[in-house]
Protein backbone atom coordinates (compact mmCIF):
# COMPACT_ATOMS: atom_id res chain seq x y z
CA UNK A 1 0.00 0.00 0.00
CA UNK A 2 1.33 3.39 -0.97
CA UNK A 3 0.42 7.02 -0.99
CA UNK A 4 1.63 9.49 -3.57
CA UNK A 5 0.86 13.15 -4.02
CA UNK A 6 1.82 14.96 -7.17
CA UNK A 7 2.12 18.72 -7.58
CA UNK A 8 -0.48 19.21 -4.88
CA UNK A 9 -1.49 22.87 -4.51
CA UNK A 10 -4.22 24.63 -2.66
CA UNK A 11 -5.26 28.26 -2.80
CA UNK A 12 -7.77 29.92 -0.51
CA UNK A 13 -8.97 33.35 -1.60
CA UNK A 14 -6.22 33.47 -4.20
CA UNK A 15 -3.57 32.94 -1.57
CA UNK A 16 -1.48 29.80 -1.96
CA UNK A 17 -1.41 27.89 1.28
CA UNK A 18 0.21 24.89 -0.36
CA UNK A 19 2.18 24.86 -3.56
CA UNK A 20 3.59 22.12 -5.70
CA UNK A 21 3.97 19.43 -3.07
CA UNK A 22 5.39 16.12 -4.28
CA UNK A 23 5.62 13.35 -1.71
CA UNK A 24 5.60 9.60 -1.90
CA UNK A 25 5.04 7.44 1.16
CA UNK A 26 5.90 3.78 0.75
CA UNK A 27 4.38 0.67 2.23
CA UNK A 28 4.66 0.63 6.04
CA UNK A 29 6.61 3.84 6.01
CA UNK A 30 5.93 6.70 8.38
CA UNK A 31 6.44 10.16 7.00
CA UNK A 32 6.22 13.07 9.37
CA UNK A 33 5.15 16.43 8.00
CA UNK A 34 6.88 18.97 10.18
CA UNK A 35 6.55 22.72 10.23
CA UNK A 36 5.45 25.74 12.23
CA UNK A 37 1.74 26.49 12.54
CA UNK A 38 0.26 27.78 9.31
CA UNK A 39 2.80 26.03 7.11
CA UNK A 40 0.13 23.99 5.34
CA UNK A 41 0.73 20.66 7.03
CA UNK A 42 -2.83 20.16 8.25
CA UNK A 43 -4.14 21.37 4.89
CA UNK A 44 -2.11 18.65 3.21
CA UNK A 45 -3.72 16.06 5.43
CA UNK A 46 -7.21 17.40 4.75
CA UNK A 47 -6.58 17.26 1.01
CA UNK A 48 -5.44 13.67 1.22
CA UNK A 49 -8.43 12.76 3.39
CA UNK A 50 -10.75 14.34 0.84
CA UNK A 51 -12.17 16.90 3.26
CA UNK A 52 -10.95 19.70 0.98
CA UNK A 53 -10.48 19.81 -2.77
CA UNK A 54 -7.02 20.63 -4.13
CA UNK A 55 -6.70 23.56 -6.53
CA UNK A 56 -4.16 21.62 -8.53
CA UNK A 57 -2.40 18.29 -8.37
CA UNK A 58 -3.32 14.67 -7.89
CA UNK A 59 -3.44 12.17 -5.05
CA UNK A 60 -2.83 8.46 -5.54
CA UNK A 61 -3.61 5.75 -3.03
CA UNK A 62 -2.28 2.34 -4.08
CA UNK A 63 -1.55 3.92 -7.48
CA UNK A 64 -5.25 4.73 -7.95
CA UNK A 65 -6.08 8.37 -8.60
CA UNK A 66 -8.41 9.35 -5.74
CA UNK A 67 -8.31 13.11 -6.30
CA UNK A 68 -11.99 13.29 -7.17
CA UNK A 69 -13.53 10.62 -4.99
CA UNK A 70 -15.22 10.98 -1.62
CA UNK A 71 -13.49 10.56 1.77
CA UNK A 72 -15.31 7.27 2.44
CA UNK A 73 -14.12 5.65 -0.77
CA UNK A 74 -10.54 6.65 -0.07
CA UNK A 75 -10.60 4.36 2.98
CA UNK A 76 -8.61 6.53 5.29
CA UNK A 77 -7.96 6.14 8.98
CA UNK A 78 -7.64 9.57 10.47
CA UNK A 79 -6.88 10.75 13.98
CA UNK A 80 -7.84 14.36 14.55
CA UNK A 81 -5.96 16.75 16.77
CA UNK A 82 -9.14 17.21 18.80
CA UNK A 83 -9.77 13.42 18.57
CA UNK A 84 -13.27 14.28 17.27
CA UNK A 85 -14.97 11.61 19.34
CA UNK A 86 -18.75 11.84 19.22
CA UNK A 87 -19.57 13.30 22.65
CA UNK A 88 -23.07 11.83 22.88
CA UNK A 89 -21.96 8.26 22.23
CA UNK A 90 -20.20 5.80 24.52
CA UNK A 91 -16.79 4.46 23.63
CA UNK A 92 -18.36 1.31 22.17
CA UNK A 93 -20.86 3.29 20.10
CA UNK A 94 -18.16 5.67 18.92
CA UNK A 95 -16.36 2.65 17.54
CA UNK A 96 -19.40 0.79 16.20
CA UNK A 97 -21.15 3.58 14.32
CA UNK A 98 -18.70 3.50 11.43
CA UNK A 99 -18.76 -0.29 11.23
CA UNK A 100 -22.55 -0.20 11.27
CA UNK A 101 -22.92 2.20 8.36
CA UNK A 102 -20.29 0.29 6.41
CA UNK A 103 -22.45 -2.81 6.68
CA UNK A 104 -20.38 -4.95 9.03
CA UNK A 105 -22.53 -7.65 10.66
CA UNK A 106 -23.47 -7.16 14.32
CA UNK A 107 -21.55 -10.24 15.35
CA UNK A 108 -18.38 -9.13 13.61
CA UNK A 109 -18.77 -5.60 15.01
CA UNK A 110 -18.83 -7.06 18.52
CA UNK A 111 -15.78 -9.22 17.92
CA UNK A 112 -13.70 -6.49 16.36
CA UNK A 113 -14.60 -3.91 19.00
CA UNK A 114 -13.90 -6.34 21.85
CA UNK A 115 -10.58 -7.16 20.24
CA UNK A 116 -9.50 -3.55 19.75
CA UNK A 117 -10.65 -2.57 23.26
CA UNK A 118 -8.46 -5.25 24.77
CA UNK A 119 -5.47 -4.31 22.60
CA UNK A 120 -5.90 -0.68 23.64
CA UNK A 121 -6.61 -1.56 27.28
CA UNK A 122 -9.94 0.20 27.12
CA UNK A 123 -12.21 -2.71 28.17
CA UNK A 124 -13.23 -1.09 31.43
CA UNK A 125 -14.14 2.14 29.70
CA UNK A 126 -16.39 0.65 27.02
CA UNK A 127 -19.56 2.24 28.39
CA UNK A 128 -18.11 5.60 29.29
CA UNK A 129 -18.73 8.80 27.40
CA UNK A 130 -15.78 10.77 25.97
CA UNK A 131 -16.26 13.49 28.60
CA UNK A 132 -15.59 10.86 31.26
CA UNK A 133 -12.21 9.93 29.79
CA UNK A 134 -8.76 11.41 30.29
CA UNK A 135 -6.86 12.90 27.37
CA UNK A 136 -4.76 9.80 26.91
CA UNK A 137 -7.80 7.54 26.97
CA UNK A 138 -9.60 9.69 24.40
CA UNK A 139 -6.55 9.50 22.23
CA UNK A 140 -6.58 5.71 22.43
CA UNK A 141 -10.27 5.64 21.49
CA UNK A 142 -9.51 7.86 18.49
CA UNK A 143 -6.69 5.53 17.46
CA UNK A 144 -8.99 2.53 17.88
CA UNK A 145 -11.53 4.12 15.58
CA UNK A 146 -8.89 4.70 12.92
CA UNK A 147 -7.64 1.11 13.27
CA UNK A 148 -11.15 -0.32 12.94
CA UNK A 149 -11.51 1.55 9.68
CA UNK A 150 -9.07 -0.95 8.16
CA UNK A 151 -7.72 1.83 5.97
CA UNK A 152 -5.34 2.03 3.06
CA UNK A 153 -3.58 5.02 4.63
CA UNK A 154 -3.28 6.40 8.14
CA UNK A 155 -3.41 10.16 8.61
CA UNK A 156 -2.52 11.44 12.07
CA UNK A 157 -3.03 15.16 12.67
CA UNK A 158 -0.98 16.23 15.68
CA UNK A 159 -2.30 13.21 17.55
CA UNK A 160 -0.38 13.98 20.71
CA UNK A 161 -0.36 17.74 20.89
CA UNK A 162 -3.08 17.81 23.55
CA UNK A 163 -1.26 15.46 25.88
CA UNK A 164 1.38 16.22 28.46
CA UNK A 165 4.99 15.30 27.84
CA UNK A 166 5.00 12.20 30.00
CA UNK A 167 1.93 10.75 28.33
CA UNK A 168 3.43 11.38 24.91
CA UNK A 169 6.45 9.35 25.82
CA UNK A 170 4.19 6.51 26.94
CA UNK A 171 1.98 6.63 23.87
CA UNK A 172 4.72 6.90 21.28
CA UNK A 173 5.70 3.20 21.47
CA UNK A 174 2.01 2.30 21.41
CA UNK A 175 1.47 4.22 18.21
CA UNK A 176 4.58 2.67 16.76
CA UNK A 177 3.46 -0.87 17.63
CA UNK A 178 -0.11 -0.47 16.51
CA UNK A 179 0.10 1.60 13.39
CA UNK A 180 3.63 2.01 12.18
CA UNK A 181 4.30 -1.71 12.08
CA UNK A 182 1.42 -2.30 9.71
CA UNK A 183 1.48 -2.40 5.94
CA UNK A 184 -0.16 0.97 5.49
CA UNK A 185 1.75 4.17 4.88
CA UNK A 186 1.41 6.66 7.71
CA UNK A 187 1.37 10.42 7.44
CA UNK A 188 2.08 12.03 10.77
CA UNK A 189 1.60 15.77 11.07
CA UNK A 190 3.35 17.52 13.91
CA UNK A 191 5.00 20.79 14.83
CA UNK A 192 7.27 19.05 17.33
CA UNK A 193 10.62 18.19 15.78
CA UNK A 194 11.45 15.86 18.65
CA UNK A 195 8.30 13.82 18.02
CA UNK A 196 8.94 13.75 14.28
CA UNK A 197 12.50 12.50 14.75
CA UNK A 198 11.40 9.90 17.28
CA UNK A 199 8.56 8.41 15.28
CA UNK A 200 9.16 8.92 11.58
CA UNK A 201 11.22 7.09 8.98
CA UNK A 202 11.38 10.27 6.96
CA UNK A 203 10.50 13.87 7.65
CA UNK A 204 9.16 16.47 5.24
CA UNK A 205 9.76 20.00 6.48
CA UNK A 206 7.20 22.53 5.27
CA UNK A 207 7.31 26.29 5.42
CA UNK A 208 4.65 28.62 4.07
CA UNK A 209 3.16 25.84 1.97
CA UNK A 210 6.44 24.87 0.34
CA UNK A 211 8.48 21.75 0.87
CA UNK A 212 11.86 22.71 2.32
CA UNK A 213 13.46 19.33 2.59
CA UNK A 214 12.50 15.70 2.77
CA UNK A 215 14.72 12.98 4.15
CA UNK A 216 15.54 10.75 7.07
CA UNK A 217 15.90 12.44 10.47
CA UNK A 218 19.66 11.85 10.25
CA UNK A 219 19.91 13.55 6.86
CA UNK A 220 17.95 16.53 8.07
CA UNK A 221 20.09 16.80 11.17
CA UNK A 222 23.41 16.36 9.43
CA UNK A 223 22.79 18.14 6.16
CA UNK A 224 19.98 20.64 6.49
CA UNK A 225 19.28 22.16 3.08
CA UNK A 226 18.50 25.61 4.46
CA UNK A 227 18.89 27.80 7.52
CA UNK A 228 15.19 27.23 8.22
CA UNK A 229 15.58 23.44 8.37
CA UNK A 230 18.78 23.76 10.41
CA UNK A 231 16.94 25.92 12.91
CA UNK A 232 13.90 23.66 13.01
CA UNK A 233 15.64 20.32 13.47
CA UNK A 234 17.75 19.67 16.56
CA UNK A 235 17.41 21.02 20.07
CA UNK A 236 18.92 23.07 21.62
CA UNK A 237 18.61 25.15 18.50
CA UNK A 238 21.58 25.55 16.20
CA UNK A 239 23.83 28.64 16.63
CA UNK A 240 23.65 30.91 13.61
CA UNK A 241 26.72 33.09 13.28
CA UNK A 242 26.67 36.54 11.72
CA UNK A 243 26.97 36.60 7.92
CA UNK A 244 30.38 37.35 6.41
CA UNK A 245 30.77 38.03 2.70
CA UNK A 246 27.48 36.38 1.75
CA UNK A 247 28.00 33.26 3.85
CA UNK A 248 26.14 32.34 7.03
CA UNK A 249 27.85 29.77 9.22
CA UNK A 250 25.98 27.68 11.73
CA UNK A 251 27.16 25.28 14.40
CA UNK A 252 25.12 23.06 16.70
CA UNK A 253 25.59 23.59 20.46
CA UNK A 254 26.58 19.93 20.87
CA UNK A 255 29.44 20.33 18.35
CA UNK A 256 31.22 23.15 20.16
CA UNK A 257 34.11 22.04 22.35
CA UNK A 258 35.69 23.73 25.33
CA UNK A 259 39.43 24.01 24.63
CA UNK A 260 42.59 25.53 26.10
CA UNK A 261 43.11 27.98 23.30
CA UNK A 262 40.34 29.12 20.98
CA UNK A 263 37.69 31.80 20.75
CA UNK A 264 37.51 33.62 24.06
CA UNK A 265 33.98 33.76 25.51
CA UNK A 266 32.24 34.87 28.67
CA UNK A 267 29.77 32.58 30.43
CA UNK A 268 26.47 34.43 30.93
CA UNK A 269 24.15 31.71 32.12
CA UNK A 270 23.78 27.95 32.29
CA UNK A 271 21.04 25.38 32.44
CA UNK A 272 21.59 21.98 33.96
CA UNK A 273 19.81 19.27 31.96
CA UNK A 274 20.75 16.14 33.88
CA UNK A 275 23.02 14.38 31.43
CA UNK A 276 24.21 17.64 29.93
CA UNK A 277 24.42 21.27 30.71
CA UNK A 278 23.68 24.09 28.34
CA UNK A 279 26.00 27.10 28.54
CA UNK A 280 25.02 30.52 27.25
CA UNK A 281 28.12 32.33 26.04
CA UNK A 282 28.92 35.83 24.94
CA UNK A 283 31.53 35.55 22.16
CA UNK A 284 33.04 37.87 19.57
CA UNK A 285 30.68 36.06 17.13
CA UNK A 286 27.63 36.97 19.16
CA UNK A 287 25.65 34.94 21.66
CA UNK A 288 26.33 31.19 21.49
CA UNK A 289 24.89 28.11 23.10
CA UNK A 290 27.16 25.22 24.03
CA UNK A 291 26.12 21.77 25.15
CA UNK A 292 28.63 19.87 27.27
CA UNK A 293 28.70 17.10 29.83
CA UNK A 294 26.99 17.82 33.13
CA UNK A 295 30.18 17.25 35.03
CA UNK A 296 32.37 19.62 33.04
CA UNK A 297 33.72 22.36 35.26
CA UNK A 298 32.70 25.75 33.96
CA UNK A 299 34.47 29.04 34.48
CA UNK A 300 33.50 32.56 33.70
CA UNK A 301 36.12 32.75 30.96
CA UNK A 302 35.83 29.95 28.46
CA UNK A 303 37.67 29.29 25.24
CA UNK A 304 35.92 27.32 22.55
CA UNK A 305 36.44 25.83 19.09
CA UNK A 306 34.77 23.33 16.76
CA UNK A 307 35.63 20.89 14.04
CA UNK A 308 35.02 22.56 10.64
CA UNK A 309 33.37 19.30 9.46
CA UNK A 310 30.47 20.00 11.81
CA UNK A 311 30.00 23.52 10.58
CA UNK A 312 27.11 24.29 8.20
CA UNK A 313 27.37 27.05 5.63
CA UNK A 314 24.45 28.79 3.94
CA UNK A 315 24.00 31.50 1.36
CA UNK A 316 23.10 34.56 3.40
CA UNK A 317 20.56 35.84 0.82
CA UNK A 318 18.66 32.69 -0.09
CA UNK A 319 19.36 30.73 3.08
CA UNK A 320 20.29 27.73 0.91
CA UNK A 321 23.06 25.37 1.96
CA UNK A 322 26.45 25.79 0.27
CA UNK A 323 28.43 22.66 -0.68
Amino acid at each position, binding site marked *: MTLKIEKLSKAINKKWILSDLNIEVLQSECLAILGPSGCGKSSTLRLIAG*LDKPTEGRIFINSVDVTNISPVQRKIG*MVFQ*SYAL*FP*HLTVTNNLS*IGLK*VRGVSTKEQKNRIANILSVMQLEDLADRFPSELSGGQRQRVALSRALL*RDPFVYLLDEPMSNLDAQLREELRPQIRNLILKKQQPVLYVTHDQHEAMAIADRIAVLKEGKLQQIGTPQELYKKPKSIFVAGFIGRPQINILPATSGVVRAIRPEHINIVQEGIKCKLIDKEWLGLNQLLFLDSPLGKLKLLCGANNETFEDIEISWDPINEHQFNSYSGIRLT
Partner: protein
Amino acid sequence: MIRNKFLLIILLLWSLCPFFWQVYTSFCSSESILSPLLNIDNRWTLQNYIQLFTSEPPFWRYLLNSTIVGTTSTVLTLIIALPASYALTRINKVFATGFKLFFFIAALFPYVLLFLSLLEIARALNIGNNLFALSLPYASLSLPLAILLLSAAFNDLPKDLEEAAKIEGLGLFQRLRWILIPLIAPATASTSIIIFLFSWNEYPIALTWISKPELITLPVAIARIAGSSVYSVPYGAYAAATVLGSLPLIIIVLLFQKQIIAGLTQGAVKG
Protein backbone atom coordinates in the same frame (compact mmCIF):
# COMPACT_ATOMS: atom_id res chain seq x y z
CA MET B 1 -22.91 35.58 48.24
CA ILE B 2 -25.65 36.12 50.81
CA ARG B 3 -26.54 39.46 49.30
CA ASN B 4 -26.72 37.83 45.86
CA LYS B 5 -29.10 35.19 47.16
CA PHE B 6 -31.23 37.83 48.79
CA LEU B 7 -31.46 39.71 45.49
CA LEU B 8 -32.33 36.49 43.68
CA ILE B 9 -35.14 35.76 46.10
CA ILE B 10 -36.56 39.26 45.65
CA LEU B 11 -36.35 38.88 41.88
CA LEU B 12 -38.02 35.48 42.06
CA LEU B 13 -40.87 36.79 44.24
CA TRP B 14 -41.24 39.77 41.95
CA SER B 15 -41.66 37.54 38.89
CA LEU B 16 -43.80 34.90 40.57
CA CYS B 17 -46.07 37.27 42.49
CA PRO B 18 -48.66 37.75 39.70
CA PHE B 19 -48.84 34.00 39.25
CA PHE B 20 -49.31 33.36 42.96
CA TRP B 21 -51.96 36.07 43.09
CA GLN B 22 -53.73 34.36 40.21
CA VAL B 23 -53.60 31.01 42.02
CA TYR B 24 -54.93 32.66 45.17
CA THR B 25 -57.75 34.34 43.27
CA SER B 26 -58.73 31.12 41.55
CA PHE B 27 -59.54 29.55 44.91
CA CYS B 28 -61.56 32.52 46.17
CA SER B 29 -65.30 32.96 46.04
CA SER B 30 -66.45 35.93 44.03
CA GLU B 31 -67.40 38.06 47.10
CA SER B 32 -64.00 37.56 48.70
CA ILE B 33 -62.18 38.55 45.51
CA LEU B 34 -63.89 41.89 45.48
CA SER B 35 -63.31 42.56 49.18
CA PRO B 36 -60.02 40.91 50.11
CA LEU B 37 -59.78 42.60 53.51
CA LEU B 38 -63.19 41.61 54.86
CA ASN B 39 -63.56 38.58 57.04
CA ILE B 40 -65.79 36.31 55.02
CA ASP B 41 -66.76 32.85 56.22
CA ASN B 42 -66.65 31.00 52.91
CA ARG B 43 -63.56 32.63 51.42
CA TRP B 44 -62.12 29.45 49.96
CA THR B 45 -63.90 27.57 47.22
CA LEU B 46 -63.35 25.15 44.36
CA GLN B 47 -66.39 26.56 42.60
CA ASN B 48 -64.31 28.33 39.93
CA TYR B 49 -62.68 25.10 38.83
CA ILE B 50 -65.90 23.12 39.04
CA GLN B 51 -67.56 25.73 36.87
CA LEU B 52 -64.82 25.40 34.23
CA PHE B 53 -65.08 21.65 34.02
CA THR B 54 -68.85 21.43 34.03
CA SER B 55 -69.44 23.97 31.31
CA GLU B 56 -69.98 22.82 27.74
CA PRO B 57 -67.49 22.04 26.28
CA PRO B 58 -65.45 21.32 29.41
CA PHE B 59 -62.24 23.24 29.91
CA TRP B 60 -59.94 20.27 29.35
CA ARG B 61 -61.11 20.32 25.74
CA TYR B 62 -59.38 23.69 25.22
CA LEU B 63 -56.23 22.38 26.85
CA LEU B 64 -56.33 19.42 24.48
CA ASN B 65 -56.94 21.68 21.46
CA SER B 66 -54.01 23.91 22.34
CA THR B 67 -51.79 20.91 22.98
CA ILE B 68 -52.65 19.47 19.57
CA VAL B 69 -51.95 22.75 17.79
CA GLY B 70 -48.79 23.36 19.82
CA THR B 71 -47.36 19.91 19.21
CA THR B 72 -48.17 19.89 15.50
CA SER B 73 -46.72 23.32 14.89
CA THR B 74 -43.57 22.47 16.89
CA VAL B 75 -43.00 19.21 15.04
CA LEU B 76 -43.76 20.81 11.69
CA THR B 77 -41.40 23.70 12.35
CA LEU B 78 -38.57 21.41 13.45
CA ILE B 79 -38.97 19.12 10.44
CA ILE B 80 -38.36 22.09 8.18
CA ALA B 81 -36.04 24.16 10.36
CA LEU B 82 -33.50 21.45 11.23
CA PRO B 83 -32.41 20.63 7.66
CA ALA B 84 -32.77 24.27 6.62
CA SER B 85 -30.51 25.54 9.38
CA TYR B 86 -27.95 22.82 8.67
CA ALA B 87 -27.95 23.88 5.03
CA LEU B 88 -27.46 27.50 6.10
CA THR B 89 -24.21 26.60 7.84
CA ARG B 90 -22.89 24.74 4.80
CA ILE B 91 -23.71 27.04 1.89
CA ASN B 92 -21.62 29.97 0.70
CA LYS B 93 -21.10 32.51 3.50
CA VAL B 94 -22.45 35.43 1.47
CA PHE B 95 -25.71 33.64 0.67
CA ALA B 96 -26.00 32.44 4.25
CA THR B 97 -25.64 35.96 5.62
CA GLY B 98 -28.26 37.17 3.14
CA PHE B 99 -30.70 34.45 4.15
CA LYS B 100 -30.07 35.07 7.83
CA LEU B 101 -30.75 38.76 7.41
CA PHE B 102 -33.97 37.91 5.61
CA PHE B 103 -35.03 35.53 8.38
CA PHE B 104 -34.11 38.10 10.98
CA ILE B 105 -36.37 40.67 9.35
CA ALA B 106 -39.10 38.07 9.03
CA ALA B 107 -38.74 37.15 12.69
CA LEU B 108 -39.12 40.79 13.70
CA PHE B 109 -42.12 41.38 11.41
CA PRO B 110 -45.33 42.04 13.39
CA TYR B 111 -47.40 39.05 12.32
CA VAL B 112 -50.65 40.66 13.39
CA LEU B 113 -50.49 42.58 10.12
CA LEU B 114 -50.82 39.26 8.31
CA PHE B 115 -53.86 37.85 10.02
CA LEU B 116 -56.45 39.28 7.63
CA SER B 117 -54.69 37.89 4.59
CA LEU B 118 -54.16 34.61 6.41
CA LEU B 119 -57.86 34.51 7.08
CA GLU B 120 -58.54 34.97 3.37
CA ILE B 121 -56.20 32.11 2.60
CA ALA B 122 -57.96 29.89 5.11
CA ARG B 123 -61.30 30.78 3.59
CA ALA B 124 -60.10 30.20 0.02
CA LEU B 125 -58.60 26.82 0.89
CA ASN B 126 -61.51 25.98 3.15
CA ILE B 127 -59.27 25.01 6.05
CA GLY B 128 -61.00 26.97 8.80
CA ASN B 129 -62.07 25.11 11.93
CA ASN B 130 -59.24 22.63 11.63
CA LEU B 131 -56.64 22.39 14.38
CA PHE B 132 -54.00 20.87 12.13
CA ALA B 133 -54.53 23.60 9.58
CA LEU B 134 -54.07 26.19 12.32
CA SER B 135 -50.59 24.85 12.93
CA LEU B 136 -49.60 25.79 9.38
CA PRO B 137 -49.48 29.56 9.99
CA TYR B 138 -47.99 28.94 13.42
CA ALA B 139 -45.18 26.86 11.95
CA SER B 140 -44.48 29.36 9.20
CA LEU B 141 -44.42 32.26 11.67
CA SER B 142 -42.05 30.35 13.96
CA LEU B 143 -39.74 29.21 11.19
CA PRO B 144 -37.50 32.30 10.86
CA LEU B 145 -36.59 32.41 14.54
CA ALA B 146 -36.25 28.63 14.73
CA ILE B 147 -33.89 28.56 11.77
CA LEU B 148 -31.77 31.35 13.24
CA LEU B 149 -31.49 29.65 16.63
CA LEU B 150 -30.77 26.20 15.22
CA SER B 151 -28.23 27.38 12.67
CA ALA B 152 -26.36 29.12 15.48
CA ALA B 153 -26.29 25.78 17.26
CA PHE B 154 -25.05 23.92 14.16
CA ASN B 155 -22.40 26.59 13.70
CA ASP B 156 -21.12 26.06 17.22
CA LEU B 157 -20.48 22.36 16.67
CA PRO B 158 -16.81 21.59 16.07
CA LYS B 159 -16.26 20.93 12.36
CA ASP B 160 -14.07 17.95 13.21
CA LEU B 161 -17.04 15.92 14.37
CA GLU B 162 -18.83 16.00 11.05
CA GLU B 163 -15.59 15.38 9.18
CA ALA B 164 -14.78 12.40 11.36
CA ALA B 165 -18.25 11.06 10.59
CA LYS B 166 -17.65 11.62 6.88
CA ILE B 167 -14.43 9.65 7.01
CA GLU B 168 -16.19 6.92 8.96
CA GLY B 169 -18.54 6.59 6.02
CA LEU B 170 -21.71 8.27 7.27
CA GLY B 171 -23.78 9.86 4.50
CA LEU B 172 -25.49 13.23 4.85
CA PHE B 173 -28.70 11.88 6.41
CA GLN B 174 -26.83 9.49 8.67
CA ARG B 175 -24.64 12.36 9.87
CA LEU B 176 -27.67 14.49 10.60
CA ARG B 177 -29.60 11.66 12.21
CA TRP B 178 -26.86 10.09 14.33
CA ILE B 179 -24.37 12.88 14.99
CA LEU B 180 -25.48 16.44 14.36
CA ILE B 181 -29.11 16.54 15.46
CA PRO B 182 -28.45 14.65 18.72
CA LEU B 183 -25.62 17.06 19.45
CA ILE B 184 -27.79 20.15 19.15
CA ALA B 185 -30.55 18.63 21.30
CA PRO B 186 -30.32 21.41 23.90
CA ALA B 187 -30.85 24.08 21.27
CA THR B 188 -33.67 22.05 19.75
CA ALA B 189 -35.32 21.80 23.16
CA SER B 190 -35.21 25.51 23.82
CA THR B 191 -36.35 26.30 20.28
CA SER B 192 -39.25 23.87 20.65
CA ILE B 193 -40.34 25.60 23.84
CA ILE B 194 -40.34 28.95 22.10
CA ILE B 195 -42.43 27.61 19.21
CA PHE B 196 -44.80 25.81 21.54
CA LEU B 197 -45.18 28.91 23.68
CA PHE B 198 -45.99 31.06 20.67
CA SER B 199 -48.70 28.70 19.51
CA TRP B 200 -50.01 28.30 23.06
CA ASN B 201 -50.42 32.06 23.48
CA GLU B 202 -51.41 33.07 19.96
CA TYR B 203 -54.74 34.85 19.81
CA PRO B 204 -55.75 36.72 16.58
CA ILE B 205 -55.23 33.86 14.13
CA ALA B 206 -56.80 31.33 16.46
CA LEU B 207 -59.75 33.66 16.95
CA THR B 208 -60.38 34.09 13.23
CA TRP B 209 -59.58 30.60 11.95
CA ILE B 210 -61.62 28.66 14.49
CA SER B 211 -65.28 29.31 15.22
CA LYS B 212 -66.62 25.97 16.47
CA PRO B 213 -66.80 26.18 20.29
CA GLU B 214 -65.36 22.68 20.75
CA LEU B 215 -62.30 23.50 18.65
CA ILE B 216 -61.19 26.87 20.06
CA THR B 217 -57.80 27.14 21.68
CA LEU B 218 -56.95 28.27 25.17
CA PRO B 219 -56.42 32.02 24.69
CA VAL B 220 -59.70 32.33 22.81
CA ALA B 221 -61.48 30.27 25.43
CA ILE B 222 -60.10 32.37 28.27
CA ALA B 223 -61.17 35.53 26.49
CA ARG B 224 -64.65 34.08 26.11
CA ILE B 225 -64.84 33.33 29.82
CA ALA B 226 -63.76 36.84 30.66
CA GLY B 227 -66.40 38.30 28.38
CA SER B 228 -69.13 35.79 29.15
CA SER B 229 -71.21 38.10 31.33
CA VAL B 230 -72.28 41.59 30.45
CA TYR B 231 -72.63 42.92 33.97
CA SER B 232 -69.68 41.47 35.84
CA VAL B 233 -66.24 40.07 35.18
CA PRO B 234 -65.96 36.46 36.43
CA TYR B 235 -62.57 36.99 38.02
CA GLY B 236 -62.55 33.65 39.79
CA ALA B 237 -63.21 31.52 36.70
CA TYR B 238 -60.86 33.70 34.70
CA ALA B 239 -58.06 33.15 37.20
CA ALA B 240 -58.72 29.42 37.35
CA ALA B 241 -58.53 29.25 33.54
CA THR B 242 -55.20 31.08 33.39
CA VAL B 243 -53.76 28.87 36.14
CA LEU B 244 -54.81 25.74 34.27
CA GLY B 245 -53.54 27.21 31.03
CA SER B 246 -50.09 27.89 32.38
CA LEU B 247 -49.66 24.57 34.21
CA PRO B 248 -48.70 22.53 31.11
CA LEU B 249 -46.03 25.10 30.23
CA ILE B 250 -44.63 25.07 33.75
CA ILE B 251 -44.48 21.28 33.65
CA ILE B 252 -42.71 21.28 30.27
CA VAL B 253 -40.17 23.86 31.40
CA LEU B 254 -39.47 21.98 34.63
CA LEU B 255 -38.99 18.73 32.71
CA PHE B 256 -36.63 20.23 30.15
CA GLN B 257 -35.00 22.98 32.18
CA LYS B 258 -31.55 21.46 31.90
CA GLN B 259 -31.70 21.37 28.10
CA ILE B 260 -33.28 24.81 27.89
CA ILE B 261 -30.58 26.42 29.99
CA ALA B 262 -27.89 24.59 28.01
CA GLY B 263 -29.56 25.72 24.80
CA LEU B 264 -29.85 29.33 25.84
CA THR B 265 -26.23 29.55 26.93
CA GLN B 266 -24.93 27.76 23.86
CA GLY B 267 -22.42 29.83 21.97
CA ALA B 268 -21.50 31.75 25.09
CA VAL B 269 -18.63 29.40 25.76
CA LYS B 270 -16.95 27.73 22.84
CA GLY B 271 -16.38 24.10 23.68
